[in-house]
Structures are given as C-alpha cells and as structure tokens.
C-alpha cells in the first residue's frame, strides 16, 4: 500500500464510503444530504469552530473537560451537569476503548452490562453502537458545542456517525491516534484512514458545513519534548488541509516548566502558519489547545488541584485558545461528575484571573521558542526530504527511520529510541536523541542541559533519571531528583 498526500478523488472516497458504512449496522442510518441539512440547523453558538473563533477575538482561553459514560441518558445528564454546574465552555464526548478499536460487539456487551449493574462498565460513550439518532438526542440536549474525543486508529465509521449525529468538532489524526493508541496499526494504514476522515470533513466543508478538527497534541502524555509533538501537529494539519479541512486546532501537552510551555505554544502557532501558507492553505483557520499535565497524577486530590491549576496558569499565560482540563480523580479512575466539575472550577478561576497576563513575548520564552522552532525545522525538513516533498510518504519513511519517534509509545511502528528527561529547571530535554535529525549544536544543547542537572544531582546522566521523572509529578515534584539529594 502506497499512500500519498493528495486529496482523495471522489471515486476513491465514495467507493471506500460504501464499505465503511457497512462496518456496523448503524452505518446505514447515515445520509449525507440529510446530515448536511441537520448540521446547518445547528445554531452558530453551538458550533465548535465559531466559538473558538470568538475566543480568539476576545483573547480568552476556553475550558473543556473530558467525559463519557456507557448509557446515553446518563451521558446527557453528565454533560448537562458539566455545562451548567461545571461552567464548561466546550463539551466532549469521550469514546470508550472498545469502540476505539472497532470492537463493537464488546461495546454492546459493555452497554448491556452497564444497564444491568447500574454503573458504567465502559470507559466512554460508544457512539457507533448508538448511531445517528441517539447522538442527535445527545448533541441537541446541550447548550454548548460538543466534540468527539477518542483515540481511534480507524475512525472512519465513527466520523460518519459523529458528524451526522450533530457533533461539530472531531479529534484525532493518522499519527496521533495511532502511535500512542495502538500496537499493530501501520502508519500507512492509519494515515489512509484519516485521509478518509479529513476528506469527509472536507466534503462537509464544501457543502457549507464547517467541522473543527483537532490533531491529538499530547501523544503519550509523558515527557514529550515540544519539538516532537509540534512537528506531528503540523504534519497532521497539512494532511488534513490537503483533504479540504478548514478549521484546525493544534495541541500541546503541558511539560511543567512555564517558559518551555509558553514557548511550545508560541512556536507551534508561528511555524504552523508558515507551513500552511507555504502550501497555499491561507484560508485554514488555526487555533490552539493546551492540555493540562497528561502524565501520571498524584493520588491526593488536593495535590491534583495543584497540578490542574498550574496547567491552567500555563494555558492562560500562553494564551491558548482552549485548555483541556483534568480532574482531582485523575490518578484513581474516570471521575464522578462532581470531581470533573471541580477540575473545571479550579481551572476557570485561574484562567479568568490570568486573562490579562501574557507571557508570550518575554525574552526567555522567545529564546526557548527559537530553539523549539529550530528543532521542528530539522524534523520537518527531513520528513519533507524523505517524502520528496510529500508529507504522507515522508511521514511513513520518517517513522521507519526514527526521524519521527515518540517516547513511551506502544506502537511497534515507532522506533522508541528517543528518551526524554528533565533538565535542571524542569524543561523536557532529550537524553537519547535517537535518530532525530538534529544539528550538532542542538545535540550539544540537550546534552549540556542534562549534564547541568547531573552535576547538580551528583550522578551521571542515565535511564534512572527518566524513571524518576516519569514518577515525579505523581510524587509531588517536577524533576525526579535522587532520594538522598
């Protein structure tokens, strides 16, 4: 299978579509023209893209939770609670793990068992099993825009049902919903699946319905160096734009060092515009999403509030368009609605207190941002080179070569040579550069930053640092110092 970064032809798309809609019986309910009409009936304030655009104008950061349960009436109640009590600006429907892996039979069992036991036995909302009509009941019961959040390598049927079901934003991408979420899907495969999803969004766009698309920024959520996630975000944005997507939100998962976090969003915003323009996508709208710390959380709820609030602060100071909010139950399990709302409350407080403070142009941020930009260009140029100008081909080759390499990923298509660790100020650097195509000065920079830490800790740079850093936030720190320091 050879994929290229070209807009799918109508023939290819509609041929595929026929198959896709047969993957589960609810696919039959999807009727494109009727779905366009339905989407057009959704008022502007309930459209994701419109609300994001407004936030950009008003220079505010919107807040959005994660949430999804097995039973749809419970799911509606949950989301209504989060928009009313929780003061969420944007809503999610987080999809369960069986659906993510197209195991609709197991999802069905999950729905049944949940009905029996009276508690949700699924870790999310099984959109495909419910189908278009029930999705419309959900989305129309709410006052705020709703997005599908998942982690599905092959999300073609899910996209069809979601958009027809009245969702106005859709998360994911061929890289970001493969490498962190799958073991055995090849990159070719998932890029091709997501070309379908993006093309579908493009087709809706051409019919006058704009669906917001969001590559999943945080990847494995664990010590991802900004240059890696930013590069993936830009590639996925280019792939999506090629298929006709016009409204894209690119994301980043908090690392914890404020300067680095603000710089990550700053560099992402700058470089993505440049690349989209370079390829002629001047009319693609870009917004940003900042994810509160995506790695392991402390068990203690009050401590979790500390982590959540620090994420909110960084999002506000970076002027991200929206922030994805964690909850004080994070380390324990799927949160109750109350815990979910309390994460939103803490976040809202910090976000609105910091609304008028902006750290994007302070000198330390600018110089960190310049480093990230330089790193991103190394990676992106190499991907382009490997693909001879084609980002789909280049991406496949880049993963094979370890030019794209995502730490801690479960996928066997990921090299897994890159190893991150924090420097002495908590910024995420690279202990093993692997095959990232960095210039010698960048390699030196990372090495030197980690040596600085090693010296302070009186130990050598080693894998033990990585382990200590993985646990650090859960234990109350950012940098995982040796115990007897």
């Amino acid at each position, binding site marked *: 299978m050879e994929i290229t970064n070209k807009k799918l032809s109508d023939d290819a798309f509609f041929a595929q579509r026929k198959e896709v809609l047969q993957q589960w019986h609810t696919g039959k309910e999807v009727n494109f023209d009727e779905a366009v009409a339905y989407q057009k009936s959704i008022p502007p304030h309930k459209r994701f893209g419109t609300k994001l655009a407004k936030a950009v104008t008003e220079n505010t950061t919107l807040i959005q939770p994660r949430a999804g349960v097995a039973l749809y009436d419970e799911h509606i109640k949950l989301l209504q609670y989060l928009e009313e009590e929780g003061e969420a600006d944007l809503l999610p429907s987080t999809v369960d*793990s*069986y659906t993510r892996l197209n195991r609709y039979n197991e999802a069905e*069992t*999950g729905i049944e068992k949940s009905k029996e036991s009276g508690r949700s036995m*699924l870790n999310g909302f099984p959109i495909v099993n419910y189908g278009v009509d029930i999705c419309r009941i959900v989305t129309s019961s709410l006052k705020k825009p709703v997005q599908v959040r998942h982690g599905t390598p092959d999300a073609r049927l899910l996209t069809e049902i979601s958009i027809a079901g009245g969702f106005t934003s859709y998360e994911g991408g061929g890289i970001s919903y493969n490498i962190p979420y799958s073991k055995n899907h090849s990159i070719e495969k998932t890029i091709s699946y997501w070309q379908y999803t993006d093309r579908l969004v493009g087709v809706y766009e051409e019919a006058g319905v704009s669906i917001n698309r969001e590559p999943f920024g945080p990847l494995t959520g*664990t010590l991802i160096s900004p240059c890696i996630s930013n590069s993936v975000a830009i590639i996925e944005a280019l792939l999506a734009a090629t298929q006709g997507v016009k409204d894209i939100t690119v994301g980043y998962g908090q690392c914890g060092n404020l300067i680095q976090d603000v710089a990550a969003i700053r560099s992402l915003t700058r470089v993505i515009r440049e690349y989209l323009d370079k390829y002629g996508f001047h009319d693609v709208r870009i917004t940003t999403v900042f994810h509160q710390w995506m790695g*392991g959380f402390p068990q203690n709820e009050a401590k979790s509030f500390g982590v959540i609030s620090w994420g909110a602060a960084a999002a506000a100071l970076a002027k991200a368009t929206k922030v994805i909010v964690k909850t004080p139950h994070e380390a324990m399990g799927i949160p109750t609605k109350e815990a979910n709302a309390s994460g939103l409350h803490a976040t809202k407080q910090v976000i609105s207190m910091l609304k008028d403070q902006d750290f994007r142009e302070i000198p330390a941020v600018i110089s960190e941002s310049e480093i990230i930009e330089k790193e991103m260009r190394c990676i992106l140029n190499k991907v382009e080179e490997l693909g001879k100008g084609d980002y789909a081909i280049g991406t496949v080759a880049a993963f094979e070569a370890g030019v794209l390499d995502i730490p801690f*990923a479960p996928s066997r298509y990921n090299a897994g040579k890159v190893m991150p660790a924090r420097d002495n100020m908590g910024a995420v650097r690279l202990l093993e550069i692997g095959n990232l195509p960095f210039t010698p000065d960048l390699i030196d920079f990372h090495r030197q930053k980690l040596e600085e830490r090693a010296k302070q800790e009186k130990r050598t740079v080693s894998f033990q640092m990585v382990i200590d850093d*993985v646990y650090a936030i859960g234990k109350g720190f950012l940098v995982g110092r040796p115990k007897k320091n």
Partner: protein
Amino acid sequence: MGERTIVTGVIGADVHAVGNKILAFALREAGFKVVNLGVMVSQEEYIEAAIETNADVILVSSLYGHGEIDCHGLRQKCDEAGLKEIPLLAGGNLVVGKQNFEDVEKRFLAMGFTRVYPPGTTVETCIEDLKELFQSE
C-alpha cells in the same frame, strides 16, 4: 531460590505503555526474569507465554477501566491449560472510576486472582510481594 520468571503485560484493548515499560525494567533490575508482552495482551497470550517460559507468576496490568471485563475467565483458562497453581496478580486502575478498593479486591479474588492491587501501588511493593510469594512457596 533460583531465578524466577514473570510473565507480564497490559490486558485487553488497553494501550497504557508507560507503567508497563517501567515495571518490566524495575522487575529486571530486581533480578527477575521478565517476559514482557507489552500492551493489548489477550488472555491466550499470557497463558501461551507462561507455558512456554515455565513462568512462576502472571502479572496482569489493567489501567483503562475495562479490567473487570477483560480479566473475567482468565483463571479458568489457566486451569484448563494446566497452569492450575500459577499465581495471578492484578494491578493498575482495574475498574471504571474511583471505587471502594475492598469491593474491587473482593470481585477480583472471586474471579480467582491471587493478589489485587489498588491504583498507585509502587513497584517496590510489587517486588516485595513477589519475593514474599516465592519465599512462601
């Protein structure tokens, strides 16, 4: 007591890889022989690996919340495959949501697990318990 072999992995459709990688690393550091199956491991894969490597214990991780569904029947399958005595340990975030751990433990013990661990269990506890388990044999 000789080198002990541990089969480990993350069960079901679960892709949480970080804890698995670190757990495997730590167990090896502690002197065990570790057969790490990675993420998305089926019940059959655990059993095959345990037979093949003559393992002393199967250590099941489940993080994503479907642990209860995914672990159902594992003990029976072990028994059928001739692994009657093999200790089965389970840990991670075994169920959906923040639940009373005693209840969760009961449900897993009833399913035939030997030991069950709450969220946040450290690798140190895990290693100590394994040592104790092997000593008591």
